[in-house]
């Protein structure tokens, strides 16, 4: 029987379909990657609500306050004292005036009126309500005077 010789040339692999798929994947991951929610803190478990819809127009001037508890890797609360998280920094609500004043001064320096700035409050679902009210009150102390507030919640998809 005659065996067909495959020859010494390497077979040509058609790369086009693979590149097509890989580009599709890259495009997919690029589109769904969300680089905007850098302000969100993982230590905060937001309450869920059906009516919580993302704003249709993105706010120009907004800053976020994350209020939550220190948690371990399993997500269990290890300290029942709520803190405001600024990156690695944690401040108790009672001692937050200086930090809020700095934020207000920043907006005043760049020439944005404080009444146009929205304070987005991301509070953990188990934080005491009075504490959130205290935080809002602190945001309205003399020299801080923010007027717009938005309480954040995770959007619950209705069944």
């Amino acid at each position, binding site marked *: 029987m005659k065996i067909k010789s495959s020859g010494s040339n390497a077979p040509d692999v058609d790369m086009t379909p693979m590149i097509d798929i890989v580009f599709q994947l890259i495009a997919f991951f690029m589109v769904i990657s969300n680089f905007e929610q850098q302000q969100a803190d993982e230590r905060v478990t937001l309450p869920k609500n059906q009516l919580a819809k993302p704003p249709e127009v993105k706010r120009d001037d907004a800053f976020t306050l994350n209020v939550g508890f220190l948690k371990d890797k399993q997500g269990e609360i290890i300290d029942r004292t709520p803190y405001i998280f600024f990156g690695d920094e944690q401040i108790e609500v009672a001692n937050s005036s200086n930090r809020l004043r700095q934020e207000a001064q920043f907006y005043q320096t760049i020439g944005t009126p404080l009444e146009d700035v929205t304070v987005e409050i991301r509070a953990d679902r188990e934080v005491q309500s009075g504490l959130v*009210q205290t935080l809002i009150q602190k945001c309205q102390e003399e020299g801080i005077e923010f007027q717009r507030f938005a*309480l954040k919640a995770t959007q619950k998809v209705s069944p």
Partner: protein
Amino acid sequence: MKIRNRNEGGEKIEVQMAPMIDVVFQLLIFFMLTLKIIEPEGDFDINMPLGAPQTSSVTDPDLPPFKVRMEADPATGALSQLLFNGQPMGNDSTAFQRLNLEIFKSVNALKAAGPEALEKQEVEIDPDFGLHYKNIIEAISACSGKMVDGKMVRYISRIKFAPIREEN
């Protein structure tokens, strides 16, 4: 001028695919690793004009705000009683539905009085200090509207907080 014949020799130019594939895979891995699945977040606007936050401010004396009072269990912070204008709504999961219904009835009554009245109407949320924050969101949601077939029907948009209650 002599023009160089590009097809001289008639050889096909081979494109080097290996470097491109290397880069493309690097990109793919980068996007896969940086992917974080985050649930979409929404928010509720709160109307807190400057002034005396410690005193209950009435914007329009003819239109007193709807009062939503929430009492908390001091030990757990769970909701123990929900009251709408002094009327008990219960403390279970249906309490907020009942509140939503009461707000709907009041909104209909206001609509009959005129569209301006509805725009001016405020809701004042008055929780106990220790109440879990998730109840606030539920109450605000019940006052602001209802989802009907995936669309939001807005009831009241002016929501504010009552003065802070003392911590127990």
